[in-house]
């Protein structure tokens, strides 16, 4: 839908995309982490590669597929939401959450497995970054799950319908953008931590 149509729909001012500013800033800070990680790796590539091989690449790959699938369901929800089919949007968001819940399980298993075999933040520099990057990403994921949980409730049931629908559409738009960012960041994190050092 072009911007002109949105303005004609009666919204006094379309400000949902301002979340793009947050996304750009958040990506920048992750970008900085990636560069610092690679710069720290410069002096000790063997240690970083050896540590990376202790991670289960298959689990990281599984998590990438889980997030892509969840992101896709949420993108789809956004498409039907724009067309006004909120019942379908709610259902798709709920499916997106259900799929994404598996990400938490897999990540939780990985953390448990690593911590119980004595691999912690202070094991070496690679694992400091492993826990920092995946940990901060995990916080983003948890916030995203809460946002999806709110979106799965659908538009406010008691507010006047036009108002409730306009506000739901705005939140659906912003919330799904945030969720795609969580997916997008995992792609670089997965490549950096699991793939670059594999074999």
């Amino acid at each position, binding site marked *: 839908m072009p911007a002109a149509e949105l303005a004609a729909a009666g919204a006094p001012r379309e400000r949902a995309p301002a979340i793009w500013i947050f996304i*750009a800033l958040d990506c920048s800070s992750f*970008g900085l982490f*990636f560069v610092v990680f690679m710069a720290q790796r410069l002096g000790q*590539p063997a240690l970083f590669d050896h540590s990376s091989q202790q991670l289960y690449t298959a689990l990281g790959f599984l998590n*990438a597929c889980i997030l892509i699938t969840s992101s896709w369901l949420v993108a789809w929800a956004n*498409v039907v939401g724009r067309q006004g089919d909120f019942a379908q949007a709610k259902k798709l968001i709920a499916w997106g959450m259900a799929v994404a819940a598996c990400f938490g399980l897999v990540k939780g298993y990985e953390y448990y497995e690593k911590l119980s075999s004595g691999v912690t933040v202070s094991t070496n520099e690679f694992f400091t970054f492993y826990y920092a990057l995946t940990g901060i990403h995990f916080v983003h994921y948890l916030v995203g799950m809460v946002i999806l949980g709110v979106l799965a409730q659908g538009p406010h049931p008691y507010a006047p319908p036009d108002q409730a629908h306009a506000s739901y559409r705005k939140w659906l738009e912003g919330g799904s953008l945030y969720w795609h960012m969580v997916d997008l960041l995992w792609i670089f994190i997965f*490549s950096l931590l699991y*793939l670059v050092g594999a074999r």
Partner: protein
Amino acid sequence: MIGNDSAAPRNAWLLLLLISGLSFVAAEFSAERHIAIAAIVGIAAAKIVVILVRFMDIDRAPAGIRRYLYGWTLVCSAAIFGLWWAASA
């Protein structure tokens, strides 16, 4: 047009899973590391662009943000590959 095309996210999903698989194979089974790393980083960048365009409808975002995020993807991938190269040399 992109916004109302519900096939767009669906096609993107298959494409993303497919190229993710490729990058996994490159990492695990490729003998030539330089090519494998280039493939991993290139595929990561491609996946990010697909997500930006197909899922996030970046064409609707302000032009400055659009340029910035494409630039970010490029700079991050170039830095990852460049610093990997520097460490292996």
